């Protein structure tokens, strides 16, 4: 059976920092793949390339077994959440309905989905608030509601919790895990936080200098680092654990 999402031989130079090169990457439907790596290793570039926002020099991306007909058609099947919520200077409601309106969905459907996701993320009471007046945690909830309302075939998350304080992050983890269990949204999360990746990912990938150098079940990856570089990175990121390269 073909994977739900598959990437082959993706190649994107980002001089002078690194060259993104993903030989093979696949996600099964409903899976949450967390890719962890140090700052500047190419995690955000990977997500932007997977979102067809940055153009790779070469590579093949298949969603549900199909090559995308065009960039727009493909991007309307996915949703992207960035580290900063990047909300528009308008109401929370207008922000949450943005992608739905881009897709030209009928108004009752837009309303139904926006109401559901505002409720689901505990921000319905903020619907008519200006988005600029929200706290960091509330803004990121709006950003997640905006993405989840699209019912994406693939959700791309670029360090969405990085700017949040620990208690806010903890609550969002819990809510998001419940949402994943319920909706089975196929998700690719990139983060520099190993503990976050371990907790949220059903699979864990390690990215160093533009390449995914190890992939597997979180405990398996953490227990058996593939090579010295990965071992050094894991040890540095998670000094309390013992790693066996």
């Amino acid at each position, binding site marked *: 059976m073909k994977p739900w999402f598959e990437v082959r031989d993706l190649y994107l130079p980002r001089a002078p920092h690194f060259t993104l090169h993903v030989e093979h990457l696949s996600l099964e439907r409903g899976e949450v793949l967390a890719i962890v790596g140090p700052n500047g290793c190419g995690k955000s570039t990977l997500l932007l390339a997977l979102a067809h*926002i940055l153009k790779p020099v070469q590579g093949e991306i298949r969603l549900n077994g199909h090559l995308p007909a065009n960039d*727009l058609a493909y991007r309307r099947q*996915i949703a*992207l959440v960035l580290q900063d919520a990047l909300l528009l200077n*308008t109401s929370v409601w207008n922000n949450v309905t943005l*992608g739905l309106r881009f897709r030209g969905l009928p108004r009752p459907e837009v309303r139904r989905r926006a109401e559901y996701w505002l409720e689901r993320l505990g921000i319905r009471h903020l619907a008519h608030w200006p988005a600029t007046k929200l706290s960091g945690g509330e803004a990121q909830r709006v950003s997640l509601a905006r993405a989840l309302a699209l019912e994406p075939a693939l959700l*791309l998350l670029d360090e969405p919790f990085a700017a949040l304080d620990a208690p806010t992050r903890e609550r969002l983890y819990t809510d998001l895990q419940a949402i994943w269990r319920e909706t089975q949204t196929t998700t690719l999360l990139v983060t520099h936080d190993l503990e976050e990746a371990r907790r949220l990912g059903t699979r864990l990938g390690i990215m160093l200098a533009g390449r995914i150098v190890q992939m597997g079940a979180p405990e398996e990856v953490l227990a058996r680092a593939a090579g010295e570089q990965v071992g050094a990175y894991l040890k540095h990121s998670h000094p309390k654990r013992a790693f066996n390269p």
Partner: protein
Amino acid sequence: MDTEILAIILLSLRVSLTATLISLLVGLPLGTALALSRFRGQTMLLSLINTGMGLPPVVVGLVVAMLLWRSGPLGTLNLIYTPTAIIIAQTLIALPVVVGLTASALQQVDERLRWQLAGLGASTWQQVLTLWLEARLPLLAALMAGFGAVISEVGASMMVGGNIKGQTRVLTTAIVLETSRGAFDRALVLGGLLVGLTFLVNWGLTVIQQRGRR
């Protein structure tokens, strides 16, 4: 108010609003393209446009007059000393202002917002419309600056319009004429009307702009 002054006010408004509208229709897409694309010579082009924002109206008047002069390349169109000639000159004055300030307004919007919009499924046109809405406050300021530049200029209107009574006399050229005649009381009244008119238009635009803040 006598009918002559009323005609002057209406012509001033018609000419300057038309020039502002044309510069908006041309300048908004041009400024947007300049802000959102990357190409060789972009900095040079932006520098030229920024220089154009301070272009002396008499220089614009001179160039348009030479083009529209009876013996000039566009002389057969018989546009010299017509309101259309003033509209052309004023459009050329307002255009760099609108282009330059539009580009500057859009360059201030976080570049990652475009990625975010694309990542939510926006087409190119939807991205541009959303960015315009997001930058609506500085874009309206660009429009006000463009209108301010043309309603207050006198050199170009005088040179290509000729200040002909009942045909091409606008508020600024009428003030110059009355002052040169020593009719300071009439010049002062016209000056007050010009300032009042400019205030009214800018007040309307500012109300729209400040509503956008909410």
